[in-house]
């Protein structure tokens, strides 16, 4: 009875299936914690989005029904608007650049803000770069003029594609395949692994490696769960999660490469963007629109100049 009383059950939500990094990362955390703190936790990892979408899961963490999950920063910006800094287009040069920023003082500040809002974040994760996908070849921004663009429901994304003259339309990801197949939308943007996962290469045969946004996220634990741990246990969970974050990034990078190969094997044309300054110019309008929200132009400048 005393042993079971010290066992804490965790409901962990994963949006994807068992073979995806989103689930594998939690199996890794579960296994490592069992080694370090045998019998202390009982994980219930619920896969395939059965516990709801990202926002639902984050709500659940605040209301006590879910103890841990991954989340993109876009979703958590409903609580911490400053997180949209990490979503600013053409701001991060590559994965290493993003990693250095979130590992430094800016990342610490964001973690602090998340903790104040009930999300304890041991580390940030990187879902990979979002690229442009289109039914016709698009390498310069002016080619987007008048095209219907499937966007996620976020002012940041809407603003970005409007800046290039595209018509943004919000379509749930599950209906996106149909919308592109029938022509409700002409283009969209997504990470390579999600692109392959939804078999979108069948309907948007051109991928332009714009890498305009690095899709970043966090591993988080619910505050109520965190408060039930001792100081030592928190240190161990933090350490294990931080190690798992790197494991996730590595899995994601591998998944991205494999997804691109799979897409190309299916007749996908991969293009490189041209007129990079024109792309960046459009993105600057987003920086300006969001500079106050993310903490002022100096924060954007700090990120830009981070080596």
């Amino acid at each position, binding site marked *: 009875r005393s042993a079971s009383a010290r066992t804490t059950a965790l409901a962990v939500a994963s949006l994807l299936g068992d073979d995806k990094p989103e689930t594998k990362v939690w199996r890794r955390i579960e296994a490592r914690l069992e080694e370090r703190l045998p019998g202390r936790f009982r994980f219930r990892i*619920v896969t395939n989005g059965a516990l709801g979408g990202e926002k639902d899961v*984050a709500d659940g963490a605040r*209301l006590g029904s879910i103890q841990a999950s991954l989340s993109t920063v876009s979703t958590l910006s409903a609580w911490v608007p400053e997180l949209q800094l990490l979503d600013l287009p053409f701001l991060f040069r590559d994965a290493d650049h993003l990693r250095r920023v979130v590992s430094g003082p800016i990342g610490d500040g964001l973690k602090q803000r998340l903790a104040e809002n009930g999300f304890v974040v041991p580390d940030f994760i990187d879902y990979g770069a979002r690229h442009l996908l289109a039914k016709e070849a698009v390498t310069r921004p002016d080619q987007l003029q008048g095209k219907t663009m499937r966007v996620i429901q976020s002012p940041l994304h809407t603003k970005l594609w409007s800046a290039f003259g595209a018509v943004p339309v919000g379509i749930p990801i599950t209906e996106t395949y149909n919308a592109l197949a029938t022509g409700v939308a002409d283009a969209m943007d997504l990470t390579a692994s999600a692109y392959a996962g939804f078999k979108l290469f069948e309907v948007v045969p051109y991928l332009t490696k714009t890498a305009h946004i690095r899709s970043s996220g966090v591993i988080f634990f619910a505050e109520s769960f965190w408060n039930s741990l001792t100081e030592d246990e928190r240190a161990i969970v933090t350490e294990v999660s931080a190690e798992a974050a790197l494991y996730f990034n590595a899995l994601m990078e591998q998944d991205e490469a494999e997804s691109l190969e799979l897409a190309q094997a299916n007749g996908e044309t991969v293009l490189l963007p041209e007129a990079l300054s024109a792309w960046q110019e459009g993105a600057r309008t987003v920086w300006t629109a969001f500079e106050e929200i993310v903490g002022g132009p100096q924060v954007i400048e700090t990120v830009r100049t981070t080596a």
Partner: protein
Amino acid sequence: MTASGSRRRSGFAEDRRGAEQRNAPSDAPWRDVSRRLAAALEAALSTFAAGVLAVLLVLVLGSVALRYLFSTGLVGAEEAGLWLFLLLVSLGMPLAASGPLAMRLDLVARRLPQRLRLPAGMAADGVTVVAGLTLVAGGTDAAGLMGSTSVVLGLPDWLRPAALAVGGGLLIALLLLRRTAEGLGLSVLLSVLIGAGVYALPVDYAISWPPSLVALLLAGIGLLLGAPLAHCLLAATALAVPFGSVLPVPALVTNAASGLSRFLLLAIPFFLLAGGLLTVSGAAERLVRLAASLVGHRRAGLAQTTLLTSLLFSGASGSSVANAAFGAGTFYPQLVKNGYPPAQAGAVIAATSVLDNVIPPSIAFLLLAAATDLSVGALLLGGAYAGLVMAACLAVAIHLVHRGTDPMPRATGQERRRAFLAALSALGLVLVVVGGIRIGLVTPTEAAALAAGYALLLAVAHRSGRASLWSTFRQSAVEAAAIGLLIGAAAPMTFLLAVDDMAGMVTGFVTSLGGQAVVVLLLCNLVLLAAGLVLDIGAAILLLAPILLASAVAAGIDPVVFGVILVVNLMIGGLTPPVGILIFVVSGLTGVEARKLFRAVTPYLAALLVALLLLCLAALVL
């Protein structure tokens, strides 16, 4: 359907009123005041709900117009739509607590001896009180805990659980007023006390059953008592908390709110509206004339006309309930006048209305797509084939059942042409919906809005009075609220089932039996047919589809084909006792006893089972 709701009062209330009147002297002034207050509240709520539906329609049509006419998008239109739908459900839920919309399993309550009916009815009201308190308390707590702001709308997210809390409060208030007006003031007070007591029970039951199983059992008990299905689901998941459920009441409420916040589901109010307006505009009647000119001269010509009209109507409407209500209004008098016995006439109408939810557009497929992430487009295409197979089987059954009835005179070629031209505007609706989606002009939700807009134009062109248009909006709004509440109420239950990994257990069990496609299909069909006996179609889809689909995919069955079989299966449940929503609707509108309809519908049930068998064989071969 609300029309049927007002005509057909919930069973036990009438019985109890009888019992009460014998026992207690009438307290007339109180009852009169309550009756007037209840009526005023109902009128205000349905007007608000209809207004919200109208705004929703303008919003979705507006964003399509902006896209095509001005090449620009409406930022936040989707999210605004979802918030409006939540508001619609909150305002409409108190109205959907009576009549067929409540989806009460009152067959058990009706069989009870007279002296047990009052306590059973009070217990059923107690379930409604627990559901209402769950929404009030959980919604209020959740509103205080959310803390987020919608990035798109710039509005605080606490408004969403708060809306459900208000809806829950109004639900209890209207229940109190209605029962007091029925002369049951004391017993409803007792129900509130019982409900509040059960809700507040400070007990921690240490039992080893999975909490989801406890919740299912509790919901089953509520259903047997005759409480509305959605209330049973909410109350049961709230009462499962002391049994170790991981879903605290505030989380339960936000869960329900997000369960009904899916863009696809916005199509539901629009399809209901399109179906209602189609009838008001007279377009539906022109479809009848076309069908009659095509098949009226065959044996059982009028019954075959009913079938063909239902098929045509199905192409434009997404709701079998609307189809049944339309058939009961238009065909029933005609069929009886032409010598069909009343029960036979009602059975034909109920059975053919099944097609509406199988042939695209279909609310059932929208629900399935939302619950399982299957593509709506692929499901609708599968549904079109399945619907035609079912229609063919029903045509044969009608042919065999009605040997004795006289055919109508054969229409001339010219008459057929004229009927076709007259029905063109109604057939245009089919083109708007199916064409709009397939050619790629619009998403399914937008297509539904276009259908409603088109039907509205038809109604205006037909000079339907403003009053009848407005009443169609009110009716559709309340129906949409009833369906929406059910979707929301099913979400916490599916959450508990997911945490307990019921899908994994079912898949494991099926695999242990060998896991061949035939075995899986057979088992799933048995489970679904059994579920269809007692569960509403919508609830069954939301609760069972994710669980059974996992097994079917593991056995190598195509998920879309399986989805179609699942819907067909559950639609058949709309015709079976004890809960057969289509039978109830027809019974409510025609006055034929449900018992007699259940018996008369048997040959068509057999025909639909043959169709199901054919579909399953196709699934195994394909």
